[in-house]
């Protein structure tokens, strides 16, 4: 995957912060996925405008202590495979 790619959430899914779960969730017809903190942090930065590189830089400034590049790329590939992101 190129870091120039601009990922987009599949319109089948809705990302939402859920206070009661203390996490982000993905909602879709008759179902839901509770997201881990890191998945939530990545997905909330996917807005159809930012490239993968932009998302990595933004996360890196929020969490400067670790190199996140490979984690973000792995997650985006997996989320695409899951159908959460448009191919």
């Amino acid at each position, binding site marked *: 995957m190129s870091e120039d790619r601009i990922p987009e959430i599949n319109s089948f899914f809705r990302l*939402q912060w859920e206070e009661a779960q203390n996490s982000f*969730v993905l*909602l879709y*017809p*008759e*179902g839901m996925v509770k997201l881990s903190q890191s998945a939530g942090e990545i997905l909330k930065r996917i807005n159809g405008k930012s490239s993968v590189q932009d998302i990595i830089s933004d996360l890196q400034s929020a969490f400067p202590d670790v190199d996140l590049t490979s984690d973000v790329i792995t997650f985006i590939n997996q989320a695409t495979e899951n159908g959460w992101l448009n191919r």
Partner: protein
Amino acid sequence: MVGSTANLSGMPLWLLAELTYRCPLQCPYCSNPLEIASYKNELGTDDWLKVLREARKLGAMQLGLSGGEPLVRKDLELIVKEGADLGYYSNLITSGVGMDEERVVALKEAGLDHIQISFQASDKELNDFLGGTSSFQHKLDMARAVKANNYPMVLNIVIHRQNIDHIEDILKMTVELKADYVELASTQYYGWSALNVDSLLPSREQLERAESIAHAYQDQHRNKMKILYVVPDYYETRPKACMNGWGSVFLTIAPDGRALPCHAAASIPDIEFPNVKDRSINYIWNDSDAFNKFRGFGWMKDPCRTCPEKEKDFGGCRCQAFKLTGDATNADPVCSKSPHHQQLSDKVARLQDVHQLQGAPIVFRNMSNSKLLSDNSD
């Protein structure tokens, strides 16, 4: 209270609002109760808005708007709007009858997230026979309108002896209509479908053929359309994890305001289900005897009580246990560990000869049959 420990109860993540039992269709596989004609006092708009607010406060995220046919309710758009404002993901579960393009648009504007349309079959003749009304062409038109208005679309087809041999044509139709998600839901035997089980349960041979076709479509359309095929549990040897456990994530509100842990629960006698007109959702979910009755594991008898799989399937379905054994605390007889399993297997074996049973009478789900049935039981 039997089997209750407050800390086992999670949140009612799923709120199913059965807005009405009125329906223009008469499907003989309906899982509504037989007593639909005796439900006179439907909740009003304000009652529903209160239910939505209170359940959301307890953590509900998914809102199912169902029935009967929810489009019969003139205040559906208002209810949808409140759901959207509260942050629910809303699902309209409809036959498509009572819909027009204007309403598809109005519901979108009100904030509806998703529409599920049911088909009875993939051709006009069988679809209209099973639904008891001429609706096939209208359903096709409405499915196209749903897609044209950018909703995710689920097509639901309840599968049974009368339509299972058409499964390939059914799947072709769903591909043509560009469904995002297809539910091939084998009939479960509650309410009207239990009455019609002799005409509805497919044979093992029918089932195996249908399964292989469904799996081929699943592989072929993997990236475009998800196909869920639920096999009839009468053919299984372990029960379904019904509702993920009683009072665990599901909260159904019947048209008259009775709160139920699943939509068939009212079929179990001797449980007094609380009504949202009298009680808060918080009380109903956390404190009522009805919701604590089969919550957790304390209510179980053997073989469930000592079964290593109890945390996986929760002993199966309470309604089915009652229906087939007369005691809701028994193991679901689908389970091969149940002492009643053999009886169920014998019943299934008797229903294998499709040709011999072809002429079995079908009782359609409508108000006059409901009245007749309740008169007979008096």
